[in-house]
């Protein structure tokens, strides 16, 4: 009170000049302009990022979608018991089946009212030798003899390419694989509905089929390879990484030795992955004698790579738990161990899980080290026989498979590579969504 009276009595020079709140002064204007500029930069950066993301997705999807469809010749076919017996008694058994197929094919053309002249050799070029496929089918399903069966036979990769635009008619140079005139028949068949587009299950479930057979190539086997590797990575890197972090963060004395360990872990996170690959080759395969190309070895190498990521993120989330929680636990007589496991760890859980899943996602997309230990694409020739052999049997992994396909000469493998990338991205997205869900679930409100 006394101060206020003193102020009114004193000359007014100490006071600031009157300033209306309804108009902005110079200082405020400048400050607001800076703020607006900063917001604009940020927005521009976000938009640029979004733009590239959209370009990326559009190109991946437009290039990769054809890998999920294929052109098939669909044919209703009935094999009589007599035909079966006759074919099996002949010397060239598949040849006989081939003959039946051509007969059935003619019948189908007739039913649909298509009138074309063609040479049986054209069929070979369009869909390959189907005699073997048919014989195999009837040997496996003898009860289907005499019944009508719908055969879906994939067309050759060139015909496939012709229909999805990869191969232009004017680019076709006559060869034993395809002649330009064959495409006339293909067009007719397409209009008649005998050749049609179909979802390519082989691409999802199949294995690598070798350089000559892009049509039969699938990513399934290498998905399984990746799966077994991820089991190894998760089973090793999560417990080791979390235990290391807890020890370093909560128990280890702070001295030059632990500082050294800390620096080295940070450095390990920055080591190029190919270095881990050559280390794996030298240590796990050449020294320890583990089988080459095995998901087990791949998993071990990726574990080495993932550990620093997990350790760093786990330590960061342990550090983020307020010390007052530790004090509270110790204050009621909990041991160090109890305070960590009952209070600190549950609070750090969302961070640990996020870090782990990001580490796993990195490992899932890693290619270089796998190439060095022999998990190249063409190794993925089929599914493992059992769960346990899944770890030791030679296999590839998704990114290595994609790399192998992309390096092949046949243009239709290029399409498979894009398709493989879509599958890989789907897996990564799933993992990220799981990370988000887990974080939401474990997060505690303060």
């Amino acid at each position, binding site marked *: 009170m006394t101060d206020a009276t003193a102020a009114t009595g004193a000359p007014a020079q100490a006071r600031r000049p009157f300033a209306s709140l309804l108009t902005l002064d110079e200082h405020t204007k400048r400050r607001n302009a800076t703020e607006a500029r900063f917001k604009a930069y940020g927005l521009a950066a976000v938009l640029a990022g979004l733009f590239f993301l959209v370009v990326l997705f559009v190109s991946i999807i437009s290039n990769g979608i054809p890998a999920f469809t294929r052109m098939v010749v669909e044919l209703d076919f009935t094999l009589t018991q007599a035909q079966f017996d006759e074919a099996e008694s002949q010397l060239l058994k598949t040849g006989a089946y081939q003959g039946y197929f051509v007969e059935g094919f003619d019948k189908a053309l007739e039913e649909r009212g298509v009138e074309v002249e063609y040479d049986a050799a054209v069929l070979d070029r369009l869909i390959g030798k189907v005699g073997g496929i048919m014989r195999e089918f009837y040997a496996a399903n003898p009860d289907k003899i005499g019944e009508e069966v719908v055969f879906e036979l994939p067309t050759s990769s060139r015909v496939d390419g012709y229909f999805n635009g990869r191969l232009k008619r004017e680019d076709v140079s006559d060869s034993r694989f395809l002649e330009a005139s064959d495409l006339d028949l293909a067009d007719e068949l397409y209009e008649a509905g005998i050749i049609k587009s179909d979802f390519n299950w082989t691409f999802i479930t199949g294995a690598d089929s070798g350089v000559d057979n892009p049509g039969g190539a699938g990513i399934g086997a290498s998905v399984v390879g990746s799966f077994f590797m991820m089991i190894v990575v998760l089973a090793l890197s999560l417990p080791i990484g979390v235990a290391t972090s807890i020890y370093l963060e909560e128990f280890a004395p702070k001295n030059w030795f632990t500082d050294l360990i800390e620096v080295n872990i940070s450095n390990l996170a920055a080591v190029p992955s190919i270095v881990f690959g050559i280390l794996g080759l030298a240590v796990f395969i050449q020294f320890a004698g583990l089988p080459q190309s095995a998901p087990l070895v791949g998993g071990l190498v990726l574990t080495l790579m993932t550990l620093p990521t997990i350790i760093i993120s786990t330590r960061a989330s342990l550090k983020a738990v307020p010390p007052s929680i530790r004090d509270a636990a*110790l204050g009621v007589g909990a041991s160090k161990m109890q305070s960590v496991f009952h209070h600190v760890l549950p609070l750090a859980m969302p961070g640990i899980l996020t870090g782990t899943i990001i580490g796993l996602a990195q490992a899932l997309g890693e290619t270089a080290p796998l190439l060095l230990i022999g998990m190249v694409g063409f190794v993925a020739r089929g599914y493992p026989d059992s769960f346990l052999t899944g770890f030791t049997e030679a296999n590839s992994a998704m990114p290595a498979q994609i790399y192998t396909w992309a390096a092949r000469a046949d243009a239709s493998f290029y399409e498979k590579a894009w398709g493989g990338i879509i599958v890989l991205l789907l897996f990564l997205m799933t993992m990220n969504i799981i990370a988000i869900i887990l974080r939401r679930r474990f997060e505690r409100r303060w």
Partner: protein
Amino acid sequence: MKTMLTEADNTVATVPAAGPRDTKIKARKVQVYYGDTHAIKDVDVDLEDKAVTAFIGPSGCGKSTFLRCLNRMNDTIDVARVEGEITIDDEDIYDKKVDPVQLRAKVGMVFQKPNPFPKSIYDNVAYGPRIHGLAKSKADLDVIVEKSLRRGAIWDEVKDRLTAPGTGLSGGQQQRLCIARAVATEPEVLLMDEPCSALDPIATAKVEELIDELRESYTIVIVTHSMQQAARVSQRTAMFHLGELVEFGDTKEIFTNPTEKRTQDYITGRFG
């Protein structure tokens, strides 16, 4: 304020004059260093059993630091170093054979800042009894939790929402929850670092009542910035300044007839 002061005077008057009592905690030549900072200098003090000792002194003088020596919470601070001798029941608590965990079960603590676990109210209180195996059954535990919450003067406010998170309570409620948590483990010594700094006068009165009640069976040390509170609840008062123990004696004596000028100035509000 007037009425509270007179009340306080009454309380002081009714507290029996400090006769010869057993010494529970004995500190001799205690030094605490935080790195190069000498935070506690040469403190000698005898804390009586079944009595309340108040630590008073200006901010930053080392009250919390000394309090944390008594249950070895300073062990958790890397740079902190404690020298000298502190005994509880004539046993050196800094002896190599002493496990600080066992010590802290005996010497409970309420921290300056409320720090409930981010768990349910029930679990906050039940945690101590659980890890020390104080309850044979769920029913036992329920009894302990209710009793402790009542002692913390918070039972009526939380009895309908024991499963709600303890961190969702108001600051003052959180502090009372922490008091309940500390008494739930039945310590012999209770260290309270400004337990009432976030409480309203009603809750403060309840906590003070609790302290008075606990005094029957425990040794209590309370840090406080409220002279009235020190006068109301404590039998003995220790005055700290710049890491030194300036004066230590019967509360009544210190408040009515301090020997040191610094104490007198602090109590009357001339510095701090």
